[in-house]
């Protein structure tokens, strides 16, 4: 995938899915793109809950918010194709713990199991064949 600073393109298909309990949030969205045939996508709406939440911090450390359930209050991000064809979702958001306090940061892949449900809408991103840089 292009690493251009400016990548022109257009929106394609729209997909909605529910990700089930104990599936990982980040990997679940990557799997959803694979099953839909999306190479690149933007998250356009999402809500649900996590068993526990794990958010990345500077220098590779983690912040764990114990549930259940940890509610996802907002979420934004994208899915991009790696050079080898695999997909990588980068997601960040705000979560609310069982005590009602809010926390925010990037979701760590493999460490954010869905609790009840997770509803998400993805919009396919179609870069122009020759992107400006």
């Amino acid at each position, binding site marked *: 995938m292009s*690493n*251009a*600073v*400016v*990548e*022109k*393109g*257009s*929106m394609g298909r729209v997909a909605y899915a529910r990700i089930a309990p104990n599936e990982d949030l980040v990997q679940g969205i990557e799997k959803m793109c694979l099953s839909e045939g999306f190479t690149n996508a*933007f998250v356009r709406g999402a809500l649900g809950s996590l068993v526990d939440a794990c958010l990345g*911090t*500077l220098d590779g450390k983690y*912040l764990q918010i114990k549930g259940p359930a940890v509610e996802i209050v*907002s979420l*934004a*991000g*994208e899915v991009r194709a790696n050079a080898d064809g695999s997909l990588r979702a*980068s*997601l*960040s*958001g*705000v979560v609310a713990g069982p005590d009602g306090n*809010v*926390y*925010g*940061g*990037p979701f760590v892949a493999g460490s954010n199991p869905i609790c009840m449900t997770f509803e998400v809408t993805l919009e396919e*991103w179609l*870069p122009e064949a020759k992107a*400006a840089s």
Partner: protein
Amino acid sequence: MHAASGRHIRLSLMPGRSLYDALVQPLAEIGVRNASTTILGGFFDDLIYCVAPPDPSGQALVAYSKPIRAGRSFMIFGNATLGKSMRGEPLVHCHAALRTEEGLVRGGHILTDVSIVGRNPIPVLVTSLEGFELRQAYDPETNMPLLQPYKESPHE
């Protein structure tokens, strides 16, 4: 005001640049001067913001606070609007949720010219506004200069 369609761009905010420069310059190079953007989250080497409590003097609806330094922070989510200032220069109006260097979740009005993108590029979804422009202009209701839509200047 509306347009029949808008252009979409995926922009990478480049490390070491101010948020203002990282947004304005690459978009200007492809002719985008008016846009709504969604900042999808990323680390900043320095992030400075302010908040907007009521104006104690009563002259305007709100009065921006002194700058608050969040330090090395993570911008969780932001929206930034690109338009033109009253002096005719590019203007970026950005509000965002962030996690400060101390780990606190905060939010407010980002000072884009002194907030510096961190070590990794930050993705931004840009919707270019075509056929009209956003200009900062005095708003009599709030007694503040605010971005407002106008038909494009004919000489531009």
